[in-house]
């Protein structure tokens, strides 16, 4: 029963964030979610919950918010850097890999605590795809991370995306090692 309630709660929250008019679905399960989140969940259960929350957002794209006026995005400070680490992707893919979920959970909980902070999600690609398509793929990677963070109850208005395609590699090498580092999402922060 507990698992089902969490799923329902996250689903309702996700919907509620995107569609403010959806009051009925929003009211009741919120308190239930709060109660459930503190209770430890087994890793298998946790995985299940996240999958469901992503499913709930599928096909219901949430429009991007305007970037905050008069506030510049900057590289995270030294103490922030261990939270906002780069997220890596497979070749030609924009799916969130299992091993980066813990990082995104950390980022989400930090963003929920720091209400004024805005996050710029930069999507990047390795050099192997075509120039134009990589620009779209970089954006798609940034949007995947955004969608995932929204699923973790980060308000969508705090999340912004930009794609650099293959224009800004972090490693100038031409081998699998460099490509793997370049297929990434990098974060900037405006506090």
């Amino acid at each position, binding site marked *: 029963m507990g698992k089902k309630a969490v799923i329902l709660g996250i689903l309702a929250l996700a919907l509620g964030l995107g569609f403010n008019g959806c009051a009925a679905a929003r009211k009741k399960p919120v308190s239930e979610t709060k109660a459930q989140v503190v209770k430890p969940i087994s890793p298998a259960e946790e995985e299940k919950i996240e999958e469901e929350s992503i499913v709930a957002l*599928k*096909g219901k*794209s*949430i*429009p*991007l*918010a*305007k*970037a905050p006026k008069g506030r*510049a*995005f900057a590289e995270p400070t030294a103490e922030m850097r261990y939270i906002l680490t780069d997220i890596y992707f497979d070749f*030609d893919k924009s799916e969130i890999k299992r091993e980066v979920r813990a990082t995104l959970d950390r980022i989400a909980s930090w963003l929920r605590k720091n209400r004024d902070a805005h996050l710029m999600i930069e999507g990047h690609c390795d*050099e192997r*795809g*075509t*120039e*134009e*398509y990589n*620009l*779209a*793929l970089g*954006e*798609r990677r940034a*949007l995947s991370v*955004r*969608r995932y963070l929204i699923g973790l109850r980060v308000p969508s208005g705090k999340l*912004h*995306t*930009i*794609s*650099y*395609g293959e*224009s*800004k590699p972090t490693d100038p090498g*031409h081998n699998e090692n460099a490509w793997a580092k370049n297929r990434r999402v990098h974060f900037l922060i405006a506090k």
Partner: protein
Amino acid sequence: MKKIIIVLLCTIFFLATKDLLPTEVYLDISRGFAEKIPVALSFSGDKNEETKKILVSDLQRSGLFSPLINDDENEAELLIKVNCSLKLGLFRLEGIVRDITTGSGFVLGKRYQGRYPLMRSIVHRFANDLVKKVTGEKGIALTKICFISDESGAKEVYLVDYDGQNKKRVTSDKIIAACPDWSEDGENLVYLSYLNNRTEIFFHNLKSNSREILCSYPGLNAFAAISKRGEIALTLSKDGDPEIYVMRKNGSYLRRLTYSKGIDASPSWAPDGKKIAFVSDRSGSPQIYILDLSTKKVRRITYQGSYNTSPAWAPQGNLIAYTSRRGGCFEICIINPDNGEFKAITSGPGSKEDPSWAPNGRQLVFSKKLGYKSNLYIVDICTEKSYSLITGKGNYISPAWSPE
């Protein structure tokens, strides 16, 4: 002049759908049969070496003529006599063209004059008039190609004449510019710039060198392409996913056209403005699709391979050029969207991508990456031979050929 007819038929195949033509013509083309008209040239007067260089290059680049090296009139079908003079800064060119295979022979006779700095365009104009006389179509000798290069240290927009001369930088933003394209009148460029630390579409007037921001929605603003009627198709991610939109040239009346989850990018207008070819990964891998604007129906046209991107609809008729991954490299392919027939028109070492059509529908400009450096090349789709457009110390990518 019967060879002219063969060359014309070759061009027509690529402009029309296959079933409109007799089968033997198609067979000729599949063997790569495209004979050129042998031309002998004679030059006299001032600046004749320079004039000769420009005109010979124009004739070769038209794909229609083969200038004879020894100018042996016995092997030629056409004889071109050019006389130039340069007096008080005024350049004059007199060109006479005769067909030596027929009795009367006179094909074209024309005089041009202009200030000396306009010499190249005067010679190009003569080449265009000759092409027009022989094929009935406009020549491409006065067209330009815009592209992106990092030779100054940052990715900027550049222009170059179709023969690789007169390279000029358009932007000096010292940031990143990307995916430039032409307005339908050839007087403006649209491109993406990160000038304001986001992706925005700029509309840049080449005459006044002034520009405005056309759209700056949250997220991705990219791949602006202008139809012959002046409508702009582009990709925006403002609704949470990269989708295709169209709007008027001033940015008003924005309409969303695609609704698939995933990437919808790189729109390219059909010449009649009624359809748009684009890339989508809705099937799991990037493939080329066609959207019919009246029915809003979407149809996939590429099924070969797992990576087909950057479609470019030919300016006349029904062919789409695109980039296709073959093995570890990319090649330029052309496909007839009606029957799905396709072929690769580039080969050899290097990764070729991002094709853009010449207004005559016969040549394509593309970028080729070899040894981690990209340069621009042109390929003739009848002969499948390619030659260099521009090389240098930087990378040269994302070419777009101007309208006539």
